[in-house]
């Protein structure tokens, strides 16, 4: 397990001080796969490197397993080589002057107490078999493919049976196809070994597909942590909604005529229509708000009107973008543009008039950080 309390770290670049990690606290349970997700420069890698001991934080406390490895108040700072942590680096950091065997044996040779030669041989082979590299022991490390180097880095990180495993964007150097395979393989492996894992990535797909818990970071802070499903379906703010998946964002104002409808549902007046929306926090009436709705949640309205009168808008198809498994459809509604994702067989013609249904349970009200009401055009998140 890993426990981080009130971690802070500043960088000094010239005369300026940049806060890299700003009061981060988190707890990772034994065997959990925990992901730090965020854009570059958000502090996720710095946090990971603080856990590794490769960076020295300014304040806070870090516990790994049952030991406190860093504490500013108690003046504890265990050097990285005594923390018993396995780490896979972004560049893999495979030592090019050694064979595959020597790379994996390295952590064992520096372990205390040092295992016997026979034990080293056994454990290296065991680690290599975990990552399916048996038979390549004598090969010089530079003669491995990218995927093999990645497996080798994993074997080296695991061979010492570390209490936790740190993964620093380990998949970012692989090509798309291989990355997809390694996602599954990597998660299966660490789950099978029941290793506590801290994973850092800027790829939302990796975070969603692999993690037990995802923590989204922005400007050195954790803005939201939860299961992948929670993060995707219940973003608590604009940043998370925009950063993960694609989202239509429509600025509006929470209506003062609160309906007598079901709890947690509020009407929001937007330039395209008054939309019934789901609210995760009590929305103040008449406050400005942003409605977020995922492209795959928007449907074509049923021609018989059985969707009900509300949350239906009419528009014109502006542009289609064929992606293979789906078609992205950009629809102009008044001054705004909505994007929806349809099965290719459902795709309308460009220029056609179209009627869309925005299911209330999929329309999420988010607080408007700018606080200005109903400025107009909808925006597409990424």
């Amino acid at each position, binding site marked *: 397990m890993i426990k981080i309390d009130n971690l802070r770290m500043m960088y000094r670049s010239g005369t300026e001080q940049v806060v890299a990690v700003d009061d981060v606290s988190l707890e990772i349970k034994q065997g959990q796969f925990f992901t730090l997700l965020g854009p570059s420069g958000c502090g996720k890698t710095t946090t990971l490197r603080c856990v*590794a*001991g*490769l960076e020295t934080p300014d304040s806070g406390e870090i516990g790994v397993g049952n030991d406190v490895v860093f504490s500013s108040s108690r003046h504890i700072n265990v*050097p*990285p*080589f*005594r*923390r018993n*942590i*396995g*780490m896979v*680096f*972004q*560049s893999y*950091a495979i*030592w*090019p*002057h050694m064979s595959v065997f020597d790379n994996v044996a*390295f*952590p064992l040779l*520096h*372990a*205390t107490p040092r295992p016997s030669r026979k034990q080293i041989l056994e454990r290296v082979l065991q680690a290599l078999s975990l990552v399916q590299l048996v038979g390549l022991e004598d090969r010089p490390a530079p003669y491995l493919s990218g995927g093999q180097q990645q497996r080798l*880095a994993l074997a*080296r*990180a695991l061979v*010492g049976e570390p209490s936790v495993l740190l993964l620093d964007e380990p998949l970012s150097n692989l090509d798309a196809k291989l990355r997809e395979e390694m996602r599954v393989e990597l998660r299966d492996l660490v789950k099978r070994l029941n290793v506590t894992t801290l994973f850092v990535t800027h790829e939302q797909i990796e975070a969603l597909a692999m993690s037990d818990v995802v923590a989204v970071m922005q400007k050195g802070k954790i803005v939201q942590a939860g299961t992948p499903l929670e993060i995707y379906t219940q973003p608590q703010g604009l940043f998370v909604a925009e950063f993960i998946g694609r989202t239509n964002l429509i600025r509006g104002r929470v209506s003062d005529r609160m309906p007598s409808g079901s709890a947690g549902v509020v009407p929001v007046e937007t330039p395209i229509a008054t939309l019934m929306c789901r609210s995760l926090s009590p929305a103040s009436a008449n406050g400005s708000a942003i409605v977020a709705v995922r492209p795959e949640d928007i449907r074509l309205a049923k021609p018989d009107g059985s969707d009900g009168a509300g949350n239906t808008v009419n528009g014109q198809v502006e542009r289609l973008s064929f992606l293979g498994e789906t078609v992205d459809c950009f629809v102009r509604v008044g001054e705004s543009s909505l994007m929806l994702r349809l099965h290719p067989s459902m795709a309308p013609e460009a220029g056609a008039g179209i009627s869309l249904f925005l299911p209330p349970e999929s329309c999420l009200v988010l607080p408007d950080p700018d606080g200005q009401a109903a400025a107009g055009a909808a925006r597409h998140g990424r």
Partner: protein
Amino acid sequence: MLAVVLVVAFVIMAHLAVILWLSFTDGAPGADALRYGFANYTEVFTDSRTIDVLLNTLGFSVVSLVVALFFGVPAAWLVERTDFRGKTAIFTLMTIGLLIPGFATAMGWLFLLHPRIGLLNVWLIQTFQLSGAPFNIATVLGMGWVQGLNLAPLSFIMTAAVFRSMDPTLEEAAQMNRANLFSTLRRVTMPLAWPGIMAASIYIFTIGFAAFDVPAIIGWGNRIFTFSTFLYLLVNPQDVLPRYGVAAALSTVVMVLAALLSWWYVRMQRQSRRFAVVGGRAYRPKLVPLGGWLATAWAYFAVYFILSKLVPILLLGWASLLPFFQLPSARALSFVSLGHYFSLPWDLALRGIGNTAILMILVPTVTLLISVAFSWIVLRSKIPGRSAFDFIAFLPHAVPNVIFGIGALLLTLYVLQQALPIYGTIWILLIVFTIARISYGTRMTNSGLIQIHPELEESAQMSGARTLSSMRRILLPLLTPTLLYAWLWVALMTYRELTLAVILTSSGNITFPVVIWSLWLGGGLGQASALAMVMLFLMVPITAVYWMVARRQGLLTN
């Protein structure tokens, strides 16, 4: 490791500090009290002799720069940007050309163009019944010519690097936009290469300014002094007492000049890097076809190598075989013998060779150990103020070597004295030679270390290895090719080092080049030539090893 770096940085600074300190004093070493004042500076700035020296030095360095650029820059362009074949051969010859000691070629040129004994002069006078010698090498112009020929390989190597790092697509874009070859060269290539060539020029000018070998061999006997030889005269005069204070003041003045030049150099280099392609080049640029100009290109290279290497070495060899120097003729041939080789003071020469051999092992080893420590502290550690160490390691490059020689001399005479009696031992040479090579060493280890991803060391730490163990198991093995190459280069530079040795040498720590120099100074031109030929001959096997290592590293090809 930090301790090593701190001590070395302190020693480097001490050399310069002692010069600054003594430039304000008057008095011999061991005197009871030193008198302070500006008398030395007054003398430097008012004495017509020092003014002459500075003017000579200026003229000498400008001429050598012009000659070096004339033979270096077009050569670099031909090798990097045209379809000229035999690029590897040119690179090899140029690199080896850098290793041939400057005093050897200077001797050769003296035998060719000395007004009285110069072979060409004598022949012209006899053939055309001239009243006087048409050429005189013992002038500022002549010395600059010889020094320029010696420095041309440096300007070649530096500008070749500039041409290589330029983005070839910029030139191609110019051609796609209707510029012909000449206007591309004029409007795109040259402006882009300009800061790099400028930086190389400042660098070469600085080396010319501080050069000792050529002015010593050619100018000394004719009382034409440049800065380095004049300093040597001040601390090592034949008839009066050494003028240490004046030497220190002159050194300080030149240090200021050198600081300005390095500041300019660093600025130019930074500008040049802005134009460089970052990362590897994806494809080879289109090469300019030479067509009918190919023969001209070959002739140009041939002229350079004949003038800079072949002629002087042939003359040196000819002089070494004759009892007294004369024109080649049937009569002269009958005098040819190995007499000089047998009559050499071999016990002195062997002592010099022995000392040089010891230094050739120790200097590169110590230099590179220190350089690795410096680079690691500067590039890998997080010690506050670490970049100051990089600056200090750069100082021996910025400040002319001869000043460090003077600094070491003054340190041993005024400060260390009896406490640490290293004057006249091989250790003082080891220290100063090492300091002089630290700039080169750290540049090499810096670029080696930059190419090694920090994560390779971090992953060793995560695998349980302590800092020193990860250095030994990861860093040093990965640095080995760089270190081997740099070791050989420093060893070869130590082999030919005359400037520093001549200032600090005495009978106990005499080195190989100094033996040649003292023979020359004593008028034994034939013997000096013979020993210089021996020196060149002994260089061949080490140069061959160097060549093999450099070729394996891909440093002799483009």
